[in-house]
């Protein structure tokens, strides 16, 4: 028994800011102080509050230390663990109360969250299967194998209302039913961990923080559809997740939870990892399967659907990491428990990766139906630097922008679709008034144009043409007719592309055209970028009433575009100016502006 536990976050955000060194320092300091038999140090998965990383939590007090540095470790050991005095200066400021520490669950960031998929992230050591088992791990698999028929398993999942967390929201139970109904002596269970949406990292955090939850759920799915082999297709960009998953699979095999005759039944199941190699289109289900087969990851025509003819031509189900992370808990707590959370058609919770112009960047899990306002203002802590909320982008390159006027929309699958965005895998990027919506649409389209596999024409050529039109807009060369043409082309691409990538690629353009048309029109009609982002449309000028003629801007201009006489107002030669912004950063009198 240990009298205290130190949890050091080993998620990707915290690992990138030295949490491994902090972990090692704790171990050596504890040893030096003779405390290593009394205090246990554990490397956990992501706590969610990445903006404040590296994060260290000390129990039993639950002291939440944020932005910890290696140099702080001796102080925590000698003060907190040796003398019992909490190091208040390092505590996350919201947890500091007059009477000591306020529980983390009472802070704004955690108060409205409800953790199901992330239940054990930041709680257990993901590299130790015993900790997962101590939290009822693999009990759901045991229950399924010994007490339930495969059809009963599918009925429970269907009844819970669980829908795919990867983007489109297809009912999971129905997908499993299709695969179960397909007759074949070989079937496959796949997990989509090719989280390619820029700005989304929930699947990574689940795999890093609670890999066994995914393994257990895949085994349950295999039993339900009658499969004995699974594949996890994971991005090679996620080395920590890959490594933890490898460790977890090895431990599960050693415990007999993967392999032959699991729990003494005649059920066999084993799991292999396949690494992606940087192709966004492989997040599409048929492309992913083609990639596992070792080929160019191009999508196939559906039907036949994977549930009939998928990987290696056999019936296959593919679910996303977060979807699997819910399965074992649904089996143990019952479908009614899961269906009690969320909205009428979207049950349960959803994990979002909060990013962009927001104070508390990180991972949040909320019941479906929570409003965007609650996520941005309460949980996210609002927009930093006193700026105004302009839009939130969900669904990555397949989604759209939600304007401030719709900030009270309850978030679920159907509401998001209705307002021209989509759930996607759960990236939620907040934008403030300094973000140009045309530029953002262009950014996403550049991404999809580069990632288009080239198999079908509407996506390959259509999106390229669409991007060229956007470039015309951002450089001030477009006409009002171009805006209408763009809209038409968007619909054409959506209706005619082969796979989800092409069918959703125009969404960022359509949604910004819908909600921020006046911003497009400003670019076209007035040749002006209201947010001051599009370089070709902004000009720098010096306000002669504010300029004192110190010459600092002129000395820092890389192209000698600023001229003048000392102590008299300077001027910018706009024909030479490359709009790098160096002068604005240098001016102490706020005399330079861009318009």
């Amino acid at each position, binding site marked *: 028994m240990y009298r205290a536990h130190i949890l050091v976050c080993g998620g990707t955000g915290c690992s990138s800011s030295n949490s491994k060194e902090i972990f090692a320092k704790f171990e050596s300091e504890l040893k030096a102080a003779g405390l290593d038999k009394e205090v246990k140090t554990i490397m956990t998965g992501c706590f969610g509050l990445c903006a404040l990383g590296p994060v260290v939590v000390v129990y039993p007090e639950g002291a939440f230390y944020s932005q910890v540095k290696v140099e702080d470790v001796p102080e925590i050991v000698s003060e907190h663990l040796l003398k019992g005095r909490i190091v208040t200066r390092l505590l996350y400021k919201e947890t500091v109360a007059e009477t000591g520490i306020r529980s983390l669950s009472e802070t704004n960031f955690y108060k409205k969250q409800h953790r199901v998929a992330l239940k054990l992230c930041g709680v257990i050591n993901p590299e130790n299967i015993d900790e997962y088992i101590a939290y009822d791990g693999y009990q759901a698999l045991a229950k399924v194998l010994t007490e339930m028929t495969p059809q009963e398993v599918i009925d429970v999942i269907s009844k819970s209302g669980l829908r795919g967390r990867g983007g489109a929201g297809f009912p999971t139970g129905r997908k499993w039913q299709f695969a179960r109904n397909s007759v074949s002596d070989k079937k496959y269970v796949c997990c989509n961990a090719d989280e390619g949406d*820029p700005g989304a990292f929930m699947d990574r955090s689940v795999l890093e923080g609670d890999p066994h939850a995914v393994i257990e759920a895949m085994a349950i799915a295999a039993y339900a559809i009658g499969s004995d082999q699974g594949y996890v297709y994971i991005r090679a960009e996620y080395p920590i997740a890959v490594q933890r998953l490898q460790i977890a699979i090895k431990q599960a095999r050693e415990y007999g939870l993967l392999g032959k005759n699991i729990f003494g039944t005649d059920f066999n199941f084993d799991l292999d990892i396949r690494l992606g190699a940087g*192709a966004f289109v492989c997040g599409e289900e048929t492309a992913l399967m083609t990639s596992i087969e070792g080929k160019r990851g191009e999508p196939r025509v559906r039907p036949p659907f994977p549930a009939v003819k998928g990987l290696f031509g056999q019936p296959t189900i593919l679910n996303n990491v977060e979807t699997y992370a819910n399965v074992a808990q649904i089996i143990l707590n019952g479908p009614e428990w899961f269906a009690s959370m969320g909205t009428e058609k979207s049950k349960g919770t959803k994990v979002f990766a909060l990013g962009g112009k927001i104070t508390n960047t990180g991972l949040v899990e909320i019941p479906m139906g929570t409003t965007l306002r609650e996520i941005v203002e309460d949980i996210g802590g609002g927009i930093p630097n006193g700026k105004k909320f302009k839009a939130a982008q969900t669904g990555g390159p397949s989604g759209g922008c939600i304007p401030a006027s719709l900030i009270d929309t309850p978030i679920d699958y159907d509401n998001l679709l209705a307002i021209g965005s989509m759930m996607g895998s759960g990236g939620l990027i907040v934008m403030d008034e300094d973000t140009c919506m045309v530029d953002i649409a262009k950014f996403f389209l550049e991404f999809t144009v580069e990632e288009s596999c080239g198999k079908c024409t509407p996506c390959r050529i259509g999106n390229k043409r669409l991007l060229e039109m956007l470039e015309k807009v951002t450089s001030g060369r477009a006409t009002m007719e171009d805006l209408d043409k763009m809209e038409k082309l968007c619909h054409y691409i959506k209706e005619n592309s082969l796979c989800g990538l092409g069918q959703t690629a125009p969404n960022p353009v359509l949604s910004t055209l819908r909600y921020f048309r006046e911003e497009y029109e400003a670019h076209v009609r007035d040749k002006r970028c209201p947010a001051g982002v599009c370089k070709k449309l902004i000009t720098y000028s010096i306000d002669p009433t504010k300029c004192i003629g110190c010459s600092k801007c002129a000395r820092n201009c890389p192209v000698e575009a600023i001229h003048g006489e000392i102590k008299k107002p300077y001027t910018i030669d706009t024909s030479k100016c490359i709009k790098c912004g160096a002068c604005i950063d240098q001016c102490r009198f706020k005399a330079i502006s861009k318009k």
Partner: protein
Amino acid sequence: MSKIKVSNVPFTGTPAQEQKLREALAELKEIPGGLMPALQKAQEIYGYLPIEVQKIVADVMDVSLEEVFGVVTFYAQFSLNPKGRYKIGVCLGTACYVKGSGDIFEAFKQQLGIDAGQCTEDGKFSLDATRCIGCCGLAPVLTVNEDVYGKLTTDDVAGIIAKYH
């Protein structure tokens, strides 16, 4: 899909590397869909996938060179060009982009005098735009080999380059 740029750097693979590759391939040949893991292994050994290496893979895995080349050029992580000793990857994921990583990327291009996907003449630095690396809390982010730098501004670029010179 980005344009295919074939390397003009002479191939310098050693017999030891080739033996290591052939041994690894013999095993991978047996698993279904082994071509991707085979190329990943080959890239791990050589650092990139010049045509000489692709020929070995095609030979041992018993697939045509055309198929190997097709797979290599489909996936962004397979490289036909050698990388620098220090691989700089600037994240252009949405969270980083919104926080100005595009400007940071431009600053690297200017200060190193190379374009995306290229390597400096002394073989020291190569520059790539990377997809989201998943630590959006630190945006904007870049990596130099295994080191991660976060919460950056364009002012930090010169200092980071100097650190590796």
